[in-house]
């Protein structure tokens, strides 16, 4: 469904992404793991076109973008078929929880208001925050904000959802609930593909069809959770797993 070829980005001579080739099939769940500063977040942002890479190709369902030349029309078209969940939640601070979910639907996708309200109500009930629908982000806890963030992404009914370390800004006791919610989303999804950047190895193991290991802006290895997490062949991956005390 999405195919990335030769993607590179550098900031003042420092290579953040180095010739990345990567693809996700329809409905597939892929986790990206690796040490901090590996370029995982940058890569995810490139897929959502929040960053403009220096070179490379992104092919989204036949819509091809050749970097660094981008047309705003193409960018918007791809963004409207994807959604992203941010590490710092990034809820719109001037909108209520409810408006956060409907904003993209009404303004960007031109869905009529009643339908958008219906979608938002259903999602808020599903994540258990219907009572908080009129609260502003400032009045919500981190865990609640992230659940709204996930709802905002789901509301758009995207073909691809990107999760950027969705739990790493949360207090430890809230991580479990949020991961459960994402697992639930993964289990009940119809056709959506998911890319998850995460430091939670057990979660990655449980939820993913495929795991990608990134280091220094490049993909070092990829395979099933069994291959990468249980029997890693690459010594770098073995070291990394040891350092995060997995197994």
């Amino acid at each position, binding site marked *: 469904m999405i195919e990335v070829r030769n993607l590179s980005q550098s*900031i003042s001579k420092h290579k*953040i992404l180095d010739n990345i080739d990567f693809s996700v099939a329809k409905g597939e769940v892929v986790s990206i793991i690796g040490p901090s500063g590996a370029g995982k977040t*940058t890569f995810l942002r490139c897929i959502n*076109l*929040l960053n*403009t890479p220096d070179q490379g190709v992104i092919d989204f369902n036949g819509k091809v973008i050749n970097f660094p030349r981008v047309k705003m029309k193409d*960018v918007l078209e791809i963004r409207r078929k994807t959604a992203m969940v941010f590490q710092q939640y990034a809820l719109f601070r001037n909108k209520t929880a409810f408006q956060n979910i409907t904003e993209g639907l009404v303004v960007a996708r031109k869905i009529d208001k009643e339908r958008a309200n219906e979608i938002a109500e259903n999602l808020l009930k599903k994540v258990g925050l219907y009572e908080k629908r009129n609260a502003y982000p400032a009045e919500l806890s981190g865990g609640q904000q992230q659940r709204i963030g996930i709802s905002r992404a789901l509301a758009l009914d995207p073909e691809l959802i990107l999760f950027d370390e969705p739990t790493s800004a949360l207090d430890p006791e809230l991580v479990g609930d949020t991961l459960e919610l994402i697992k639930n989303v993964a289990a009940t999804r119809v056709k959506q593909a998911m890319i998850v950047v995460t430091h939670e190895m057990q979660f990655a193991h449980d939820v993913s069809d495929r795991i990608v290991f990134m280091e220094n802006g490049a993909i070092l290895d990829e395979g099933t959770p069994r291959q990468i997490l249980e029997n890693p062949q690459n010594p770098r991956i073995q070291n990394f797993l040891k350092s995060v005390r997995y197994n």
Partner: protein
Amino acid sequence: MFFDIKYLYELFPQIISSLPITLSIVVVSTIGGLILGLIIAYFRIERIPLLNWLGALYVSFVQGTPIIVQLFVVYYGAPAVLDLAGINVADVSKISFMFIAYGLNSAAYFSEIIRAAINDIPKTQFDAAYSVGMNKYQAYRKIIIPQATKAMAPNVEVSVVSLLQNSSLATYLGIMDIMGKSQLVGTNTGHQMEAYIDAMVIFMVLSLAVHYLFRYFGLTKRHIKFRLYNVRPLAETNELSFKKVK
């Protein structure tokens, strides 16, 4: 003749000759204002009873009234105070009243700048200083003030520039500063426009000079004015990305 470029050159030497008056107002009031401002800030940060409250009232008065009104209140009110102190008012020159008025005005603004800068320093900095065995004075002297100086420099710069502009109001009391002099020579020669343009140029150059002086001494970085609002951490990613994709 509405405008004659020749007069721009001819009037300039006369107008610039009053530069020392303008500069002396700025320099004396800045130094006096900083000292008095520091004292007021001390009262307010340490919450000294009564003085804290008086300081707040004073700052509110200065910030809530036009400087022209303050000048005249000092000009007409100070003699009574000086009389009480046993000073013969006739011996006090007009410009001394200006030093007092502008100094009192700057003190209020400086005290707020100093107070904000010190309040913005995280309390953990005090904790850290005390934990290595410093006393309060040492903590201020070695840890807090150096950090606060950097934080307040841009605001001090803004204050000095506005003091420079406000100094032009001394004209109302017959002081021959840049503004007063340009008024005078303009009226005398009938070429007011040229005289005022000269004055404008002088004020622009002086403000730029203040700006570069602060930068020269490493107190400010380039073009940061509203510093409190300027913090935007650079993420791992390209910060300009949203401007490029347009």
